[in-house]
């Protein structure tokens, strides 16, 4: 016989309250719960606050100079006035060329690592390299770019050399994000295909890639912002202080020549050029941040669209 005492529903409890009145313990729990939730919510607000302040402040300062012409005219008067056409187009060139190199190499390498590679010393080294390269500071990539592309490969300081340096920088992150996307496709799908006599490639082409493409694309597109924003890797390898190009001509740059870039332009007009018209540095920052956000928004749209077609 055990000695547990049973309380009738609704009857008085040890602490004097009934089931339907709040006890001291219950009240404390409710207060703690609310307190903790509000604390976490505040942390969330602190996170978003700087972003809103930055964009708000920049917009406020840049509003006088922002116009259609600002984007489509070259800087003039020794960069004290004028627009952003040359650096804007230069950044677009650098981003596109670097991703044209790093996206295919990164995605295919990730497919090999995730779908084919066995656990050997070679794949372990590659995986280790991927993780560590992603953490290498961009200035180190810059020095590598100078040595490898500008001097050794003889590309000189050019859009190509700068883009390849950016590609080296974005490659490990693209490999990592693609591997993650591929890994999210359940192993059971692959096993089912193999049991049906499909080769690894048939499995990858018909099942794995179609079901991970949204994750792969998102990972690649997010690298646009890194390639567009970095200053260090390009300033020794191909980006230049000033270069006038034909306004409105999207093919104005030659890949073997140097170019201007938004990130470097922002740095020079903020620190190296005296008496810059007020608002131009802020306008440059807005164009840089705005185009990156636009591309990221496109990535979100792609992801949401592909997720609505999710198949399991």
């Amino acid at each position: 016989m055990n000695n547990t005492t049973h309380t009738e529903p609704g009857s008085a409890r040890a602490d004097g309250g009934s089931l339907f009145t709040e006890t001291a313990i219950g009240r404390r729990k409710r207060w703690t719960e609310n307190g903790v939730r509000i604390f976490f919510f505040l942390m969330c607000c602190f996170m978003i606050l700087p972003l809103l302040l930055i964009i708000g402040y920049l917009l406020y300062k840049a509003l006088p100079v922002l116009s259609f012409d600002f984007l489509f005219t070259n800087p003039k008067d020794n960069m004290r006035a004028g627009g952003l056409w040359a650096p804007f187009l230069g950044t677009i060139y650098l981003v596109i060329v670097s991703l044209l190199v790093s996206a295919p190499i990164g995605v295919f390498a990730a497919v090999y690592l995730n779908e084919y590679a066995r656990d050997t010393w070679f794949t372990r080294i590659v995986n280790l390299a991927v993780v560590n390269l992603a953490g290498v500071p961009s200035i180190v990539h810059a020095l590598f770019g100078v040595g490898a592309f500008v001097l050794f490969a003889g590309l000189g300081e050019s859009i190509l050399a700068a883009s390849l340096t950016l590609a080296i920088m974005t490659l490990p992150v693209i490999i990592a994000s693609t591997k993650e996307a591929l890994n999210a496709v359940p192993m059971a799908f692959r096993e089912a295909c193999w049991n049906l006599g499909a080769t690894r490639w048939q499995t990858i082409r018909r099942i794995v890639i179609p079901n991970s493409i949204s994750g792969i694309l998102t990972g690649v597109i997010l690298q646009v912002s890194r390639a567009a924003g970095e200053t260090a890797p390009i300033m020794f390898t191909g980006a230049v202080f000033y270069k006038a190009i034909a306004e409105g001509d999207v093919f104005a740059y030659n890949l073997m020549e140097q170019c201007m870039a938004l990130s470097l332009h922002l740095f020079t007009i903020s620190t190296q050029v005296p008496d810059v018209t007020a608002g131009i540095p802020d306008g440059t920052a807005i164009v840089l941040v705005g185009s990156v956000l636009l591309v990221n928004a496109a990535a979100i749209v792609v992801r949401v669209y592909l997720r609505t077609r999710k198949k399991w």
Partner: protein
Amino acid sequence: MEKKKIEISELRVRYGNKPALNGVSFDVYANEILGIIGPAQSGKTTLLKVINRTLEFTPGTTLEGTVKLDGEDVHTIGDVYGLRRRIGMVLPLPVGLPLSIYDNVAFAPRTAGLRKKSELDEIVERCLQQAALWDEVKDRLNSLGTKLSGGQQQRLTIARALSHQPEILCLDEFSIAVDPVTTMRIEEVLKTLRTEMTILLVTNLVQQAKRLANRTAFFLNGELVEIDATDVIFSDNPTHQSTYDYVNGNFG
């Protein structure tokens, strides 16, 4: 004596240092249903993976011994993909591929190179009918296979396994995620398929082996304890005491 379909001799498999099969030898006859019973970790699934050579996808395995299919060693067969298509494989958990119902069933014929729409149509209808799923899905062949219920997906898996006209059908605990009524329907399907192919039925439900199998093999810890006619295995005096204990629920 009946024709030997699969001959397994001295088969040993290890995952790293962990043994999974310790020297197993037995034959499977053409057009029989061989029930394979035994508790977890006894090597039943490994056995099936050796036969269709999907064990090769698991890193770190070592294998000794031979498995012959129609007298030919599976490990010297040049076209491993063709070999896998001679064997239909149904796994414990239903896996509808993230494709339409039609494409699920047409997947294997297509990987084998079949492109003609009329032939694919014919295969899809025949296999879905064989798997007792046709009547439920014939009006929505273009909807996703992954959106079917668990029991329907398992029948879709069976239809897919039949789509490459296998000589051997391996079922690995197919009823684990299926309700009893669907299980009975699939069992009826298996009885009719016996005339066309050899069936290896790995099952945790000993009564299922009793209902369906001509012969039953009892595995324990990577050893084949006993293989005999199902009547004998389920009688009061099989050769080994552990067999009697297992089928009567005294352990496992």
